[in-house]
């Protein structure tokens, strides 16, 4: 019996950390751009499948998405040529260079047969810019839209990206190599090394974000636009650039979580959405604005998920998502107290 509890605890914690990276992405995006990004989970899928492709020596389909996205960016910018051809040619040139760099990087990585960690970095470089591209296509053109419009748009993005995933990779699951194979017997409980890798990487990512936003100028700009968008704009902070940066960083965090998760559950086109939603439930605990509370939230989600799957497996998702109701009630009473 005691080993059962240990198993549930370890798995709950591991999953909680995966969701934590998602919650982090959601909070980051929401505070900077006011977008409740339902599509956040899709970067999990993109990260995992890109890594799977790279490890099996195939050209990742993400590369086509990236180059296609860059091309679309150039097309959307076409109006600027008449007004300011210097800037426009510089911009288009930059996009072309970015595309070539991505292609060269992928080719090089495939030729060199990098180890898993190296491939993870390459996959990250391919997936993260997609976040910024999606910001450019869906949020940038309508900066003053209401939150609900952004929610609806993000649902659309989620469906489209998942559809593209199905188109590119098909419905088959891809096995992905872990960072380190095998595991450790801790008492009666077998813990795969991958779980430790998840712990370390998640902590590193969170610490990195903290240091970045506290101690760099760009990070401070990010914070400023999160606190007061209009004020930041008046201070000369390019809020559109910070928005794109927030989307890029969030995509990077989610992709990392996908790459860490994939060796445990394989990579497939529909893996992201559920993970994204569970990260969302955790993030709701902090009202999508509070990092530490969101972390508490995802740990509760991870723990509840693993215990409810044990106690009543048919109802585990129902229980996890029902958690939203008490969380929202609790937040409501809290905000009322604050308002007073």
């Amino acid at each position, binding site marked *: 019996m005691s080993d*059962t509890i240990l*198993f*549930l605890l370890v798995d709950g914690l*591991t999953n909680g950390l995966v969701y934590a990276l998602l919650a982090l992405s959601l909070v980051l995006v929401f505070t900077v751009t006011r977008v409740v990004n339902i599509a956040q989970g899709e970067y999990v899928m993109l990260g995992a499948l890109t890594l799977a492709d790279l490890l099996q020596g195939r050209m990742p389909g993400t590369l086509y998405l990236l180059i296609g996205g860059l091309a679309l960016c150039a097309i959307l910018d076409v109006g600027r040529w008449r007004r300011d051809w210097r800037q426009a040619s510089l911009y288009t040139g930059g996009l072309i260079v970015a595309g070539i760099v991505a292609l060269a990087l992928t080719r090089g990585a495939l030729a060199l047969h990098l180890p898993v960690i190296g491939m993870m970095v390459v996959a990250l470089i391919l997936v993260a810019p997609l976040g910024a591209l999606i910001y450019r296509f869906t949020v940038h053109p309508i900066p003053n839209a209401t939150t609900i419009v952004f929610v609806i748009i993000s649902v659309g993005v989620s469906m489209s990206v998942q559809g593209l995933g199905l188109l590119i990779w098909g419905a088959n699951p891809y096995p992905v190599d872990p960072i380190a194979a095998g595991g450790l017997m801790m008492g009666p409980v077998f813990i795969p090394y991958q779980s430790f890798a998840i712990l370390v990487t998640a902590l590193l990512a969170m610490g990195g974000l903290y240091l970045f936003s506290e101690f760099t100028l760009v990070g401070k700009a990010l914070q400023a636009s999160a606190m007061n968008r209009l004020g930041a704009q008046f201070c000369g902070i390019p809020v559109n650039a910070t928005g794109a940066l927030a989307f890029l960083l969030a995509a990077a965090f989610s992709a990392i979580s996908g790459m860490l998760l994939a060796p445990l*559950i394989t990579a497939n086109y529909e893996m992201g959405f*559920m993970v994204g939603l569970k990260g969302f439930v955790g993030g709701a605990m902090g009202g999508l604005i509070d990092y530490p509370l969101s972390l508490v939230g995802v740990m509760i989600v991870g723990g509840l998920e693993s215990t409810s*799957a044990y106690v009543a*497996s048919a109802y*585990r998702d129902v229980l996890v998502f029902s958690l939203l109701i008490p969380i929202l009630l609790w937040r409501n009473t809290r905000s009322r107290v604050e308002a007073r």
Partner: protein
Amino acid sequence: MKILSVAAALAALAISVSAHAADKPELRIGSVVAMTGPASALGLPEKNALELLQEQLANDTSLPFTVKFITYDDGSDPTKAVNNVRKLITEDRAHVVICCTTTPTSMAILETVTQAKVPNVSLALGQSVIEPVKERHWIFKTPSTDQLQVTGLVDDMVKRGIKKVAFLGLEDSFGEGGWIAMQSVAKAKGVEIVASERFSRTDTNFTPQALKVRQSNPGAVYIHAIPPSSALVHQALKRVGYSGPIYHSGGSANNAFISIGKQDVEGALLGTTPVLVYKDLPDSNPLKPVITKFAALYEKRFNVPKVDIFPGQSWDAGNITLKAAEEAVKAGVKLDDLDASRAALRDKIEGVKNFVGVGGIFNYSPTDHLGLDHRSTFISVVKNGEFRLYESK
């Protein structure tokens, strides 16, 4: 005036009929499969096999009729399936309809074919497509069912002296089908179900369910799912220290299962159709030469390393139709008379006995529109990363 035009039409008809009578009559086999959409992994091989059959028949003059194949795509969508089946029946005037790839699409067209009185051979797994037989007068199917496969596996458990089984299944219609089959078979064979746990394809953790199963202390575990989750649940059971036999449904009988589960799924037992293990069958088994021939044809034509179960299902459906049509024409049925020949074809399909196909030996009857029995289900075991035939002790 009216009488005159009717007479003229009749005369024209008579001329056209007599003109055709010199040639062989034409048999039109219409089919609707999922060439695109989520079920295309099943539908495309099915389409391929029909194409192969058509090519084989092109050089074959022994049949007392010519065969025309009309194939449409339903995009895995029930509405599209119904529309295309209507088109087959009214515009293309098909004698037989082979449709559809999935259970939802096959259920959707039941009404259409039944009202039009057209025999239908389904390629779907679900038993509800052909049962109750009384209401499914016009419907037959070729793929094996959950019920049949679970029976084979539970028989093996009984032989090993296992009294308690734990069920682990997907929480969708596929898993539900397995659960219903397991409940009825276990009851009939006197095996107790001590745990029933559910999971979904998008879950990230399967250990809690595995722990619960281990705690119920079963003699065997049955997993009704498809990869990746079936392989991941298997791994989770190993991880929590369960060491008894683990049985799987036919849904796991593909290469993804082994490439995901790796050494953890060694020794896994799977209910399967003969296609997967035909090479290990004794030469005396009548299925072996039929499958060997089909596999060689299919693998050469479509350049695949190893044939899977899906093309065989439409291949059988096509061949059963041809056999029924041959007998009907020999018995004097005129294929030009659409309504009468459709009804006659249905009766002849129902009368098919001991037909050795790729999916098994078919014996249709007025009470059985599946036609398969224990001779067509096998258990395969994962041995050194390959599916081999498992000899029941």
